[in-house]
């Protein structure tokens, strides 16, 4: 009987509502166990009790990023910065979201803010190197918007290969489709290829087959991907990107690049890697000859 009373008291004590700090710690544990939704719910509850918690909003931002909820992650990181203007993880989180959105300048600004306060911030420095390398034309958002001034193309190249731009050169305006078809013939694109893109490092399209309203944005994204991959390789102690194979849900994209150009060919998943690579190398050789 006495034991039961003591047990009841202990139990009663245990039922005391946890503090917000305890809830954040518990959420961190849930996160570490991979129970992201449960962790996010707990953090949301704790933030109702303590809305000014930097730790809480930071954890919420991290969880939203893990759950690929970019908009909510952005809101959480912005709340952190409203509370602590130079919080490095919030600045890094927002910078990564800006880069995802193709906002390279915003990304650079956020990372510069973080590095001004914390110069020894290796993640921010690594990401800034990538964002700094991204030319405005390699910004998928900009590429999706028609530009008024065509990017500069060396005369020798323009004479041989029509650049596919949203504001084409006068020569390209006359008969871009015909010229493109001629080039496609010369390049001998494989019939199995679903999409072929050939571009310069600043994402200026040299050739696209087929070409649609989103082609420029796709090319810009390919260049951005190549930039980030090159940075990953460099940080791994390797040289610059030369080949890539990207498996998608419906197709596989093969990429070939050097310092002067980038080629991507997309194939259905049933095309063997050996066949695709053989096509890629042949078309790459043709493209580089045309560009030379």
């Amino acid at each position: 009987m006495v034991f039961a009373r003591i047990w009841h008291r202990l139990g009663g004590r245990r039922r005391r509502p946890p503090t917000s700090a305890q809830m954040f710690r518990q959420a961190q544990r849930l996160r570490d166990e991979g129970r992201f939704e449960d962790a996010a719910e707990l953090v949301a509850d704790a933030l109702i009790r303590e809305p000014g918690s930097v730790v809480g909003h930071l954890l919420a931002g991290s969880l939203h990023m893990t759950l690929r909820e970019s908009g909510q992650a952005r809101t959480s990181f912005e709340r952190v910065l409203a509370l602590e203007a130079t919080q490095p993880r919030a600045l890094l989180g927002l910078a990564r979201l800006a880069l995802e959105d193709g906002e390279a300048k915003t990304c650079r600004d956020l990372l510069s803010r973080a590095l001004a306060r914390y110069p020894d911030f290796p993640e921010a420095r690594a990401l800034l190197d990538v964002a700094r390398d991204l030319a405005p034309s390699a910004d998928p958002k900009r590429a999706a918007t028609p530009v008024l001034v065509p990017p500069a193309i060396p005369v020798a190249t323009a004479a041989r290969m029509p650049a596919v731009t949203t504001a084409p050169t006068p020569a390209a305006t006359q008969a871009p489709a015909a010229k493109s078809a001629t080039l496609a013939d010369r390049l001998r694109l494989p019939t199995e290829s679903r999409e072929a893109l050939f571009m310069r490092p600043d994402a200026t399209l040299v050739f696209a087959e087929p070409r649609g309203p989103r082609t420029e944005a796709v090319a810009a994204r390919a260049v951005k991907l190549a930039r980030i991959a090159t940075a990953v390789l460099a940080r791994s102690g390797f040289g610059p990107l030369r080949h890539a194979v990207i498996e998608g849900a419906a197709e596989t994209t093969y990429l070939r690049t050097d310092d002067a150009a980038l080629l991507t060919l997309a194939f259905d998943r049933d095309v063997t890697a050996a066949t695709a690579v053989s096509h890629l190398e042949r078309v790459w050789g043709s493209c580089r000859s045309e560009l030379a």
Partner: protein
Amino acid sequence: MGQLPLGARVSTAVAARPALGRDLRALLAELMKLEHITGGLVVAPDGLVIAADLPREVEAEPLSALAATLGRELELRGPQLRRGTFPMAQFASVSGTAFLGSTPVGFIVLLGEPQADNDAVRTALRAAVGTVYRAWAR
């Protein structure tokens, strides 16, 4: 200027349940047994390292930030793709290759020498990704 706050530093090991596909460190250790694989890491989509086994000269923190960025970029390539919907990718230079696989909890990255058997690595990585998917399915 100042030192990064303690909490802003990356934790190098996040506890995972010791179940199949949940113990990501054990999973990475298995992948590290592949021939000519010199390093690997598992990184959350927010860039935090979950597990890492890298050559001494490779810093985990910047690599993890970039790998997560690369993983997200791949996920976002198709507008219809969202959480963990691309199986994997490989990026090669003349001196080595980075393999990347996407899972619900993050990205698995393997670093291989040029002699690495790409097909064998991709097959093993695909199997690992599948194991993680099954283990973390709700």
